[in-house]
């Protein structure tokens, strides 16, 4: 059986099912990260003292990662815009760039993590590091998840372009919505963990 409303919009929602589905998922993601942010506020305001992030964490590396992730959001939206213009070659290039940016982000994160662990700074060391590893770790898992979906649409999933370009374009838009959300979370994580 075919999946309903992948290209046509449902008359009652005015949307394709994929679009409403991804937004409902993102709403649940807001609550997931929101719960952790609320815990962070609670623990920090209740603590007798709290270190400034930049006394422990590497701000230049995190700034680089912020720039990389924002750039990947632009290439993601350009990948979708390329499909809207019917330019599959450009799509492949922009989607490839998006995946590469994700990879760069993870490699930088790996160096950050290993430097911390090398200096004996573990999640169990103190509350600051516990929150740092939990929030950036969960965010990192989201980067990996987004990259997996994007890699599928760059590779084998792109076959759909030949048979149903409109459906494929919508799929890329939806995976883009997830990717932009991951970027959005980082935009808040960066100042709250590293700079304050």
């Amino acid at each position, binding site marked *: 059986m075919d999946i309903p409303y992948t290209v046509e919009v449902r008359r009652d929602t005015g949307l394709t099912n994929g679009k409403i589905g991804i937004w409902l998922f993102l709403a649940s993601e807001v609550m997931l990260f929101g719960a952790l*942010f609320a815990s962070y506020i*609670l623990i920090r305001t209740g603590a007798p003292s709290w270190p400034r992030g930049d006394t422990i964490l590497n701000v230049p590396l995190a700034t680089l990662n912020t720039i990389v992730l924002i750039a990947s959001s632009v290439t993601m939206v350009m990948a979708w815009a390329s499909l809207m213009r019917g330019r599959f070659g450009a799509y492949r290039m922009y989607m490839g760039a998006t995946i590469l940016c994700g990879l760069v982000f993870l490699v930088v994160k790996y160096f950050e993590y290993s430097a911390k662990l090398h200096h004996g700074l573990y999640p169990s060391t103190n509350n600051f590091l516990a929150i740092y590893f939990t929030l950036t770790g969960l965010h990192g898992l989201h980067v990996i998840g987004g990259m997996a979906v994007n890699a599928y649409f760059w590779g084998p999933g792109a076959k759909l372009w030949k048979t149903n370009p409109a459906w494929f374009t919508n799929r890329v838009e939806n995976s883009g919505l997830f990717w932009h959300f991951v970027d959005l979370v980082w935009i808040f994580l960066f100042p709250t963990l590293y700079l304050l």
Partner: protein
Amino acid sequence: MTSDHAASVPGDHAADVDRHVRIYITVFVTLMVLTVITVAISYLHLSTPVAVAVALFVATVKGSLVAAYFMHLVSEKKLIYAVLLLTIVFFIVLMALPVVTHSNGYWIHE
């Protein structure tokens, strides 16, 4: 016109997409500038309440730009706005929880 042109893609026409691409570039440059501002402000070593307020304000502007333009929320359907409105209400409740307990003094040792 190439043979693989997505003629059946609904919604935006090619000219609209070109206009959108220019907006994406503008938003990208703005986000980069705001990132530099975020880091620069942290070197001023403002008092914690002011630093938190400024950092969250800049982050909110950046997040709004991403949501509005990259996630197309400037022109989305009503149902998605309804879902997000509900999400924002619950998110505010979630953020208010620690603030409320704080102002009670229950969690603060004084």
